Structure formats: C-alpha cells, structure tokens
C-alpha cells in the first residue's frame, strides 16, 4: 500500500508540478471574472429579470452572489472545464509514450495494469480538484462582488426552476460541486481512454472532445429525444437536478450508474489494449 501511495504521489506530482496546471487554473479564474462582467450587461440582467418576474419574483431578491456563482460555474465548466480535462487526460499516457518516459517506467518491475491504475487515480484526483476549484472560486468571486443572497436556478433543457434561501442554496451548491466530480470524470475517462491507444496526445484530446461535442449536439436536437437516455452529456448534466425543489435521487443515481458503467467499460478496453501494446523507441 505504501508503494502504491508513493507511485500515486509521483503521478500527482507530475500533474500538479506542470506550469500549464496553474496557467489553466488562472484561465478558469479569468473566465469566471469575464462571465461576471458579462452578467452586468443590461441585456443579460433584463433577461434574468424577465424570467423571474414572469413567475412573480423580484429581480432584486434573486440577482445575488449565489445566482451569479451558479451561472459563472455552469458556464466555466461547460466551455472550459471539458476542454481542459480532455487535454490533460489525453496527455497523460500518450505524452509519456511520445516522450519516452513510459518506457523508463515499463523497464521496472511494475505491471502495465498498475501503471494505468495509478495514472487514472491521479487523473481522478485532478478532476476533483479542478471541479472544487471552479465551484469554490466562482462562489468566492461572486459573493465578494454581490454578497450571498438567495439562489435562482433556471435550466430549461433539464426543466429545472428553483428558488432557494441562502442556507439551502449553499448546501445544494456544495452538493453540486461534489456531484460534478464523478460526472466530469467521464470526460477525463474518455480522454484517458484514447490516450492509451497509439496516437499523439493532441489527437487523443481532439477525438475525445469531438465525441463529446457530437453527443451534446445530439442532445440539443429535439429529433433525437428518443436516444437522450444513451447520451453522455445528458447524464453528465444530471447535477442540475440538485436544484429541483424536490431532488430526484433515483434519477441522479441512474445517471451515476450509467456513467460509471461507461467509465468502467472504457477503462477495461483501454487496459486490454495497453496490455498488448509494444513499446519501442
């Protein structure tokens, strides 16, 4: 176990010691601030006011730090988070193969399965750290700017409309941050999966992102509503249902199980392929 931890520590060090990690985290913060700035535009505020007031609620009561944090976090993860996770995960094996460092590792008495397991565990931690960072930094920035206040959530695609007092809002927001970790791990797993094949790191990331994009397009097109239950992005957005007035635990569990199954299947195929690969300079 101590040896496993030492290997895991090494893999984490590799991920977190890279400058790009901190550039990425800085980019997330900048994106959040940019979204906050955009949400100050009169047109954006008018749209939020229209939604609230059409249901009989006051804009002033719900245009708060919590609401802004929710909007900032959602958009940052959607636009940048998935891209970044696919890039990091697509790199994790393929880049080491390309650089030759994996050959150095594989000249040691360690099984290939173990190497992949340690790397994937490190990727999972990285995914969690990123989600916690995005949700926490969105909250801190928004609350610092606008104060805490009530939370207003409107997600038409998922059919969610929720209004919450500050205490409950914070609890649900924290739960969402936790739930996002296993959900976004799907993106990481997809990038990691392709990274285990014989392709360039950039190709692994691009293929993973292309699949996700295609999946999302299918979800957005009403003609394919009959297959929504099979789509990854449909299940990955289940976290929004934490902001339903009555949380449907089964729905969330179902999505987690579906994505867990997909992740396990992808990893199994990746391990099988990796196990049979020849590594040569």
């Amino acid at each position, binding site marked *: 176990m101590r040896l496993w931890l030492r290997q895991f520590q090494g893999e984490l060090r590799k991920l977190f*010691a890279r400058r790009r990690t901190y550039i990425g985290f800085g980019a997330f913060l900048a994106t959040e601030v940019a979204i906050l700035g955009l949400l100050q535009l009169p047109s954006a505020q008018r749209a939020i006011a229209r939604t609230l007031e059409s249901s009989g609620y006051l804009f002033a009561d719900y245009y708060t730090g919590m609401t802004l944090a929710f909007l900032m976090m959602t958009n940052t993860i959607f636009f940048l988070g998935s891209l970044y996770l696919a890039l990091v995960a697509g790199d994790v094996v393929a880049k080491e193969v390309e650089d030759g460092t994996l050959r150095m*590792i594989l*000249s*040691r*008495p360690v099984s290939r399965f173990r*190497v992949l397991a340690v790397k994937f565990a490190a990727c999972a931690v990285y995914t969690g750290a990123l989600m916690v960072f995005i949700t926490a930094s969105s909250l801190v920035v928004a609350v610092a700017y606008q104060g805490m206040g009530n939370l207003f959530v409107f997600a038409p695609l998922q059919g969610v409309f929720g209004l919450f007092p500050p205490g409950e809002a914070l609890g649900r927001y924290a739960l969402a941050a936790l739930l996002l970790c296993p959900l976004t791990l799907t993106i990481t797993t997809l990038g990691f999966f392709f990274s285990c094949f014989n392709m360039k790191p950039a190709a692994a990331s691009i293929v993973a992102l292309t699949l996700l994009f295609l999946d999302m397009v299918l979800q957005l097109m009403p003609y394919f509503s009959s297959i929504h239950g099979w789509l990854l992005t449909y299940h990955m957005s289940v976290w929004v249902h934490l902001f339903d007035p009555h949380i449907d635990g089964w729905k969330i569990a179902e999505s987690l199980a579906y994505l867990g199954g997909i992740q396990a299947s992808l990893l199994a195929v990746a391990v099988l392929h990796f196990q049979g690969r020849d*590594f*040569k300079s």
Partner: protein
Amino acid sequence: MAEGSAPTYFMPMEAPGPAVDPPMLEVQGVCKRFGARRAVDSVSFQVRRGELFGLLGHNGAGKSTTIGMILGQVYPDAGTVRIGGADVFQQRARALARVGAIFETPCFYDYLSGWRNLEVFTAYTRLTTEDEIRRAVRRVGLEGRIHDPVGKYSHGMRQRLALAQALLPDPEFLILDEPSDGLDPEGIAEMRELVLDLNRREGLAILLCSHQLDEVQRLCRRLAILRSGRLVFSGNWHEMDPDEQELDLRTADTEGDCRALEQAGMAGHKDGRWVLASGTQVADCVDFLVSKKKSRIQHAGIKEATLEDVYLRVTRGGEGRER
C-alpha cells in the same frame, strides 16, 4: 552475399562448471515481426552473472527490439527471455526486480528536478530511502545540480541522471543502450570508468549496446552482433578465428611476396587480408622469402584484430566459418 545468407559465427560454449545460478540473462530463440518486416529472427544469447556483454549491430539491426523484449516492453512472436531464471513475460516482477536500464535518449520529466525524477521512477520498483538516492547521485557526480529542473540539464548531465536512475534501487543487471551517446571525450572516458567500476568492483552484469566499437572493445570480451534481425556472431570476439592469423608484412614488393607465399601454400587471401596457412609461423614465411626470393623485409608479424575488423567482417557478410 545476399542478405539472410550471411555466415554466422558462434563460439563454442565453455564447459559448464559445478552447479551454478542460472545466467543473468538468457535470450532464447526470440522472433519479432512488425507487419511484414522481420525485426528479430531467432536470436539467442546469454549474459553471465557479473559479465560485461556487448550487443552490436547497425541501425535497424534489431538491437532496440531485442532490448524491448528483454525488458518486457515488446512481446516476442516466439522465444523466451529469462532474467535470473525468471521469465520476463510470465514473472515480470521477479525478473525485473533488480534490473536497471538506460535508453539511447535519456527521457525525463523536464519540469521536475533530477531528485524528483529519481523518486518518481524508483517508486515503480520499491520504496527507496533518501540515502539510497543520495548515494546514487553522488556516484554519478550530480550532487550540485540534483535539485535543478531536468530541463536545464546538459546532455551529459541527463546521461548521468539516467545512470543514477538505473542504479536505483539496487540492480544486479544493467542494460545500457548507448550510454556514451552525445558525450564529449571526457564524458565518454568517465562513463567508461564508471561502467568498468560497476562491473568489476560491484559485480554487476552489464549488457552494453553501443555504436562506439572502440568503447565496446575496451569493455567487453563477449558480445553478440545482430545483422538485419539475425544473430551473426555470439561469443568471445578475440576467439572468433583463433587459427586464422592475419599476416602483417611490409617488403619492397609486399603484394608479390604475399603471392609467393600463397603459391608456396604458406598463406592465403581472405576478405582482402593475407592470412597464414594453418600451422605456418611468421618465421617460416620470413625464412622462405629471404632464402628463396631474396626479399628485403621491412616488417613481418601478426596483425592484431580489432573489434572493428571483426564487426565489419561479420556484418558485411564476408567469408566466414560457422563454428
């Protein structure tokens, strides 16, 4: 001579002594194809415990593939590889437990310090203490820069770091693929001393793969030579042709005198060299040339074969004798 029909030279195995440990490395009939290309074809050789063994061959001869198979990174289509008696593919952990390897181009995580790199790599073998790492770092003379990012290291420093990682935690068999590649003359000499020291003082078995024949000549007695994926020589290169001595003769008419010796059955022409006939001594030739041809001899002797001579002879597929 057509490729694939090159002669092979295999030295007879020395008579086995009393029951001993299995050889450090035993490569037995390994074959590997990449698509239609035959990269390695029925290659077999052994590295004994505590031995410094050379692996030679031109680019694309199959050296890297062979090393890949030895380390379990390339799956052979046929054959077995055993290290210390353990099969590399069936008992990987046992086989590679005390193996250190460096590759042609030392690869590291450039954004981590040398020390962190050593920690990362050695963790895949066993828990290593700081003291062990410090000793390996001191051994390769990197103490002053070990906490700098590897991205700032010179090529020579990277080679040293590569050797340090191969020495961690505690190998008894080292695989060194071009360890002197890209080093300056001073670095090459230091590396040679280090390799010799590891072999002679610490008893490590070493498989040395290099293009620098003069280095291999200085370090290895036994070696294997690959050509187009096939083993064309294996054994002690000094004994490749023990009864074939190359005549080193200089006279006023060297060519004519050599031909006279040939006609007298005292020498023969082989691979562009004049070799003494079996049982003939240099003195016999001198006697013949002086008494019968009245030749004026400037120099007569036996030319010491270099590894380069042996290498070129077997890789160019000149005439040879299978032993």
